[in-house]
C-alpha cells in the first residue's frame, strides 16, 4: 500500500547547517570573515593581494583559496604576506560549507583576525551555497559588461557588498555605469558598493578602511 509522507526539508539543509557551525566557530575564535565571489578574471586574487598588503601590520589575515585546480592563488596570497590554504575542488563549480570546515581544520585559528575566502570563479553556483562567512562580497569588473546584474540576478541579490573593479579601464570600453547601477539597485537596493582598480590602487584604501571598521564593530559585539 502506498503511503505519502510529508518531508518539507530544504535540499541545502546539510550545507546550511554546516555553514552555521562554521560561522559560530569563526566567531568563537574572534575571526571576521568575507566570502569573495566573482566570474573568472574579475580580479579576485589581485584584490585579495591588495587587501593583504593594505592590512599588513594592522591585523592578521588568512586566505582560503578555492579553485578547480592548481595552488597558484594560494601561492600569490602567501607571497603577499597571508597564511593561505588552497582547496582544489576537482571540478566542483563552487565551494561548500564542508570544504570550509576542512580548510579551517588546517589553519591555526588563534593566529587569525580576518579570513578571506576566495570562491571558485563562477556567477551562478557559489550564490546557492552558504559558507558561514560574515559578509558575502561580489567582485564585478567593468570588462564583463554592464548587463551582468540582469543576467545573474541570483548572485547580485545574495551579496552584502559589491566591488566594481578595473575602473581604470572605463575610458577604453563600452560600459554604461548608469545601466549597471540601475540593475543592481533593483535587485539589491541596500548593497554596499566600492569602485576599485587593483592596477592603479584607486579605491582600495576605502575598501581596507571598511574591512577594519567591520572587524572593529564585529569584535565589539
Amino acid at each position: 500500500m502506498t503511503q505519502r509522507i510529508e518531508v518539507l526539508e530544504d535540499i541545502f539543509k546539510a550545507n546550511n547547517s554546516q555553514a552555521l557551525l562554521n560561522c559560530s566557530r569563526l566567531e568563537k575564535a574572534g575571526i571576521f570573515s568575507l566570502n569573495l565571489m566573482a566570474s573568472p578574471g574579475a580580479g579576485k586574487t589581485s584584490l585579495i593581494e591588495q587587501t593583504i598588503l593594505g592590512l599588513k601590520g594592522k591585523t592578521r589575515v588568512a586566505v582560503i583559496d578555492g579553485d578547480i585546480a592548481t595552488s597558484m592563488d594560494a601561492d600569490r596570497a602567501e607571497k603577499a604576506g597571508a597564511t593561505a590554504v588552497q582547496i582544489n575542488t576537482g571540478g566542483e563549480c563552487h565551494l561548500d560549507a564542508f570544504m570550509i570546515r576542512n580548510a579551517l581544520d588546517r589553519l591555526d585559528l588563534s593566529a587569525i583576525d580576518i579570513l578571506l575566502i576566495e570562491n571558485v570563479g563562477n556567477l551562478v553556483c557559489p550564490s546557492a551555497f552558504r559558507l558561514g562567512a560574515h559578509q558575502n562580497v561580489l567582485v564585478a569588473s567593468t570588462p564583463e559588461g554592464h548587463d551582468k546584474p540582469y543576467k545573474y540576478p541570483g548572485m547580485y541579490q545574495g551579496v552584502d557588498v559589491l566591488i566594481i573593479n578595473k575602473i581604470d579601464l572605463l575610458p577604453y570600453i563600452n560600459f554604461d555605469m548608469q545601466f549597471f547601477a540601475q540593475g543592481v539597485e533593483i535587485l539589491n537596493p541596500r548593497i554596499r558598493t566600492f569602485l576599485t582598480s587593483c592596477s592603479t590602487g584607486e579605491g582600495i584604501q576605502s575598501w581596507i578602511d571598511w574591512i577594519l571598521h567591520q572587524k572593529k564593530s564585529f569584535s565589539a559585539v
Partner: protein
Amino acid sequence: MHELMVTQNILEIAIRHAEEAGANQISSIHLQIGQLATLVDDSIQFYWDIISKGTIAQGAQLNFLRIPAQFQCNNCKEIYSLNGDDFSCPSCHGIDIQIIAGREFALDSIEIE
C-alpha cells in the same frame, strides 16, 4: 551546474525519511523548486537514474513542482509576479522590492510502500 550534489542530497533525505517510516520502497518523490532557483529538472533526473540504483529509491518517480516567483513592493506593498525581465513594481514602478516566493528548493514529500 551542481545538480549531482543536489541530487545526492535529495537521495539522502528521501532514504532517511523512508527508513524512519519503515518503508521497503520509495515510489515517488515530490520536489518544490522555485522559479529563481538555478536548477535544471532534466539534469536532476539524469543523475537520479544513476545514483538511486541499488537503493530503496531505485525507480522512484521524480515530480517537480515549480513555484512561480513573487515579489512585494516595499513602497506600495503591491504583491506581483515576474513579468519578463522587469523586476520593478507594476503599480508604483518602485524598485525597492523583496522576493516573497521563488527561491524554494525543498523535498516536499515522498510516497513509500
